């Protein structure tokens, strides 16, 4: 049973300079207890996807088509008040910038308490501050936070980036959501701290059985955290499959190029192959497959039509090399 089903989702932004086609026909599922990693470069629409699922898009964004079914409810059909009740205990999200993820004028304790209070209310329980505090402390211990009793009395600016991301993850655990969205939660962190957080998320997924939608620009990170991987390029879903298959036998020329063009710590061979050109401007995207101007295998048809998502072995891929 899929926890989240996204189908044919398309989103545009209206800007003073024209319409930005941020996402086109995105389709995927996340099962209960599964983790899906979305990999994409800047402008791929990966953050838009995260915000779209949480219905947090800015006012100039528009859902053009598609549906987002979460727990058998179509999120796009909910009123804003109904959506509010999904947030927190249904879907929770951790953001990229730890420095501004927490409200600077409130203590950590108050911000975590707020989350616990909302869950209690929704569960129909009476809120008890002492009980909440002990729950907060125990969850902070779960996220391997040293000295949680001291940390909760602090203000966010007194915490390091890694500590804030731990607090954010703890906040998520306190709300017990069914789906955990993490939008580049480690990009602003140091390598060693990133590794700590990745490891923590992996452990928690096992311990708590949460489903994770993890968004990253670093395909190597996906390798650590993901069960399955979805590759986005310029708003198009290029490839979707299990992490093993995508990493070892990528089907789409973009994924292949991306995997071979990043420097790797375990690889020593000569010069890196490069992808020519640059990420297209979404105000004026190339017609057809958006990767075709940079693709070494491009054919005439690539600039004329958008290929359908085809299943090759256990990978879904959007490329004319695989038929149609």
């Amino acid at each position, binding site marked *: 049973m899929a926890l989240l089903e996204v189908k044919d989702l398309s989103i545009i932004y209206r800007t003073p300079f024209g319409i930005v086609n941020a996402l086109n026909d995105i389709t995927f599922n996340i099962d209960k207890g599964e983790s899906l990693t979305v990999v994409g*470069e*800047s402008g791929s629409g990966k953050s838009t996807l995260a915000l779209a699922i949480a219905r947090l898009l800015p006012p100039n964004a528009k859902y053009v088509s598609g549906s987002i079914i979460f727990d058998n409810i179509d999120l796009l059909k909910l009123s804003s008040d109904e959506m509010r009740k999904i947030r927190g205990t249904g879907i929770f999200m951790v953001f990229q910038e730890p420095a501004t993820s927490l409200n600077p004028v409130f203590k950590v304790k108050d911000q975590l308490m707020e989350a616990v209070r909302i869950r209690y209310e929704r569960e129909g329980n009476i809120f008890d501050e002492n009980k909440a505090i002990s729950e907060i402390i125990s969850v902070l211990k779960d996220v391997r936070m*040293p000295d949680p009793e001291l940390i909760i009395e602090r203000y966010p600016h007194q915490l*390091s980036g*890694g*500590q804030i991301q731990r607090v954010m993850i703890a906040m998520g655990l306190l709300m017990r959501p069914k789906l955990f969205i993490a939008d580049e939660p480690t990009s602003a962190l*140091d*390598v*060693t*701290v*990133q*590794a*700590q957080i*990745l*490891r923590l998320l992996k452990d928690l997924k096992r311990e708590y059985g949460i489903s994770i939608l993890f968004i990253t*620009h*670093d*395909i*190597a*990170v996906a*390798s*650590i955290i993901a069960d399955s991987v979805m590759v986005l390029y310029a708003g198009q879903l290029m490839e979707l499959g299990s992490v093993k298959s995508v*990493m*070892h036998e990528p089907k789409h020329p973009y994924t292949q*190029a*991306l*995997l071979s*063009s*990043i*420097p*790797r*710590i*375990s690889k*020593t061979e000569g*010069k*890196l*192959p*490069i*992808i*020519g050109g*640059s*990420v297209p401007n979404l105000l004026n995207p190339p017609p057809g497959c958006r990767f075709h101007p*940079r693709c070494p295998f491009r054919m005439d048809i690539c600039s004329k039509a958008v290929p359908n998502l085809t299943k090759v072995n256990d990978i879904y891929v959007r490329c004319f090399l695989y038929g149609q």
Partner: protein
Amino acid sequence: MGSDVLIRTENLVKVFLAKNYGIINRILREKPLFVRAVDDVSIEIPTGKTTALVGESGSGKTTLGRLLVTLEQPTSGRIYFHDIDITKARGRDLRNIRAKLQMVFQDPYSSLNPMMRIKDIIGEPLKNRGVRGKELDEAVAKIMGEVGLDYSSLATRRPSELSGGQRQRVAIARALITNPEFVVLDEPTSALDASTQAQVLNLLVDLQNRHNLTYLLITHNVAVAKYMSDLIMIMYMGKILEIGDTGSVLKEPLHPYTQALIESVPDIGKSELKPPTGEVGSLVNPPKGCRFYPRCPFRMDICREREPPIVEVKNGIKVACWLYVKK
């Protein structure tokens, strides 16, 4: 000193004020808070090679790079360029030295003046040295060609009209137009997309071969350091912990921090990471002994008391760790 050393430092120290210390603080006799960004660093950078300086945020790697190109004044210690002490150079001397020392900055968006045209940005170093008119235009066109930028379509544009990769090429062109010997590359690709990163890295390699450049590559990305560098230096909280040739250090890291760092780097096909505990400590009150002591799995009593000296352990690899000091 071998003749193949281009830049050498002796006990280089850079201390910053942690916060503004003005007249009133002086009147109130408050103690200024210092940050020891670069703490007693002695290194040698070989000619014509790429030395990578790897560290996390707060390690002082950028400050060290800025010291080497004279953008910062050291608090104490010496910097030798071709065995000439450049620490106290001023005025005309400084200008002449700066022609030979260049830097490519981390953020291609803030490294180009948005109000200037591309050709003026690239030509500025030559213009400051009296080159004008056609000669200047030709020099700019030549270097633009070398870094893969089309002169006719881009010369009169402004930075906002360029992509991140193009901007970084402009920054590289500006750094190279004075024919420098030494270039500090400060995270040259960290702001770029994965698909443009390789383009810029390969361009840098090409230019190095063509102009016999010496690079200091500052990066937090161990994989980039591995791809680019001949020599690697691992920096942590203002100290150099390990120096050696890149292949050996990454294959068999000796310092516990280097080991932990490498175990933290995600890679394709890897599914488990073994990061160290804790985070980089405060530089305002650094630990008395070894900087890595609080996070080190192999810590001993001596580590907390005394700073380890940097000693050669095997074939040119130097490590600052009590594990390798023979008593």
